[in-house]
């Protein structure tokens, strides 16, 4: 028997080993971490502090002073696009964490009580929210909350939890038939303890992968919502930069558009590749 086989192997240690061997996945993770460092720098006030200052003329071209040039009113595009990284992480993290939590709780309850009223209600709610077109729902929530800066987050969370909940529900239905749940029932563990302490931790791999997918979806939705005037209200984001640029590109000035698109593309692509690698590594059918 080899040394590797005698060592204790869990789903997680195997997955971590597999993930580390995935070159593209690790590259994606490295790029995401680089973006994250940029975002932390913005939060700490180390750089991109002058994103709102008028520092040059209209549409200055690329120079050593303004790395990506300036926009219509002379603000530095490089600083604005770097500042937007922190906005993207704020939106992505808030939406991913909260919608995953909501999806986990509702999905687990629905799965555990499948066929009963709780389940019927959650399934009905998922069907209903799925049937309202996303952008209409966001617009409606934005107006119902009357310009609240969090209306975009609320709208995304209220739709993004659904996929997570569906997956968790399916997994919980599978898990609740297993012996360890039966054993917990037999020794009189309360139902909610069984759901949240015994069953839900076993769906953690789904939650992890789903939260990375939601993170990417949130960043992408922000761009479109900000363009429609429903997104970021104060501050700066890639969506606002792109909607600024819609007038500029037809006049032949592309710096704003390119800076925001390329930076966003880099983050989304790196995160998606990492998310795929994570999914492959955690897929129990593939862990051998």
């Amino acid at each position: 028997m080899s040394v590797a086989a005698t060592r204790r192997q869990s789903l997680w240690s195997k997955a971590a080993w597999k993930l580390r061997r995935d070159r593209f996945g690790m590259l994606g993770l490295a790029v995401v971490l680089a973006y994250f460092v940029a975002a932390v720098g913005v939060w700490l006030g180390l750089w991109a502090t002058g994103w709102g200052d008028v520092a040059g003329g209209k549409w200055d071209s690329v120079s050593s002073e303004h790395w990506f040039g300036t926009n219509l009113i002379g603000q530095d595009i490089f600083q604005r696009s770097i500042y937007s990284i922190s906005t993207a992480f704020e939106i992505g993290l808030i939406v991913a964490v909260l919608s995953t939590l909501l999806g986990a709780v509702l999905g687990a309850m629905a799965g555990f009580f499948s066929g009963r009223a709780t389940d019927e209600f959650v399934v009905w709610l998922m069907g209903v929210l799925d049937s309202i077109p996303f952008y209409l729902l966001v617009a409606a929530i934005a107006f119902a909350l009357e310009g609240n800066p969090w209306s975009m987050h609320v709208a995304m969370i209220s739709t993004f939890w659904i996929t997570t909940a569906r997956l968790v529900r399916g997994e919980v239905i599978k898990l609740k038939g297993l012996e360890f749940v039966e054993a917990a029932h037999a020794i009189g563990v309360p139902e909610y303890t069984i759901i949240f302490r015994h069953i839900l931790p076993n769906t953690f791999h789904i939650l992890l992968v789903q939260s990375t997918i939601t993170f990417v979806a949130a960043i992408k939705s922000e761009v479109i919502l900000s363009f429609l005037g429903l997104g970021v209200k104060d501050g700066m984001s890639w969506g606002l930069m792109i909607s600024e640029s819609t007038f500029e590109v037809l006049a032949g000035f592309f710096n704003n558009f390119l800076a925001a698109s390329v930076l966003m593309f880099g983050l989304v692509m790196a995160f998606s590749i990492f998310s795929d690698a994570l999914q492959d590594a955690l897929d129990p059918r593939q862990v051998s």
Partner: protein
Amino acid sequence: MEVLQYSLRRLVAGIPLLLGVTFISFLLMVYFGPDQTYQLLGKNPTAEQIAEIRAELGYDQPFLVRYADYLREVATLDFGNSNSTGELVTDLLARTIPVSLMLILPGFLLGNLLALLLALLAAHYRSRWPDKGIMAFSVVGMSISYLIVIIAFQVIFSSSSGLGWFPVRGWNVHSLAEYLEYVTVPTLATVFVALGYNTRFYRSVIVEELNRDHVRTARAFGVPPAKLLYRNVLKNCLIPIITRVVFTIPLIVISGALLVETYFGIPGVGKVTFDAITTGDQPVLKAVVGLTAVLFVLAQLVVDVLYRAVDPRVSLS
């Protein structure tokens, strides 16, 4: 007969969904939505004028009465006149829905058919370079925002700094040539974005089927690859494919074209609905949301009946 019975049962089962969708959207869009009283009044209105307008808009009624009225309107398809333009809502929809359909259908069909072809190709050459190339392309396609694609394509194909082949914006369609002129750039953008997501989805469905025993057996019996992919794989994949396609239809009819319509200034139903939300044009909103919900229930029914058509093992009871 069996299908008819089943359909009726499914329609009845769709009622809770209809109620839910109409209730939540009514709550959000109408009850908490923008108040139109002062937009419709002149300057310095008297208290009676305000009360009169509010009565006309139904604002003075209790919530449940207004909701019940709404349900009656959905059932009879009588939504009244748009508050903004005064046009009959059904006329407004009859005018704008065909525009949206003409705009989005070519991209929808091409996006799905091309994706299916690419997915078959990728699955056939699994883990070899055609597969890796197609999947890399699809990840890239998925990572670019729809909005960015639209802007970039407009600059490349329509603007004076690009090729300038197509009109920059608008929708002035009277003949096939004009139609092609206006629809091409939005279609290219839609297909580009849809290809990434669709190819990936279809590939995973096809690969799963390829791993099954019956496919290996067929291959062992020497069925040629093209025939194998069509007869043994594709036909067995139809259920997830149908689900995906049919459930997208209600969304593309109502909102799928919103971004393209807004950006290219095309008077479709997505744009009309969006404007209705921002101005609080309740008759239009009620109509659009109610009809979307109805379409979803119908889509569910269609999906179930199609399941039966493509897979005799599925029973309709």
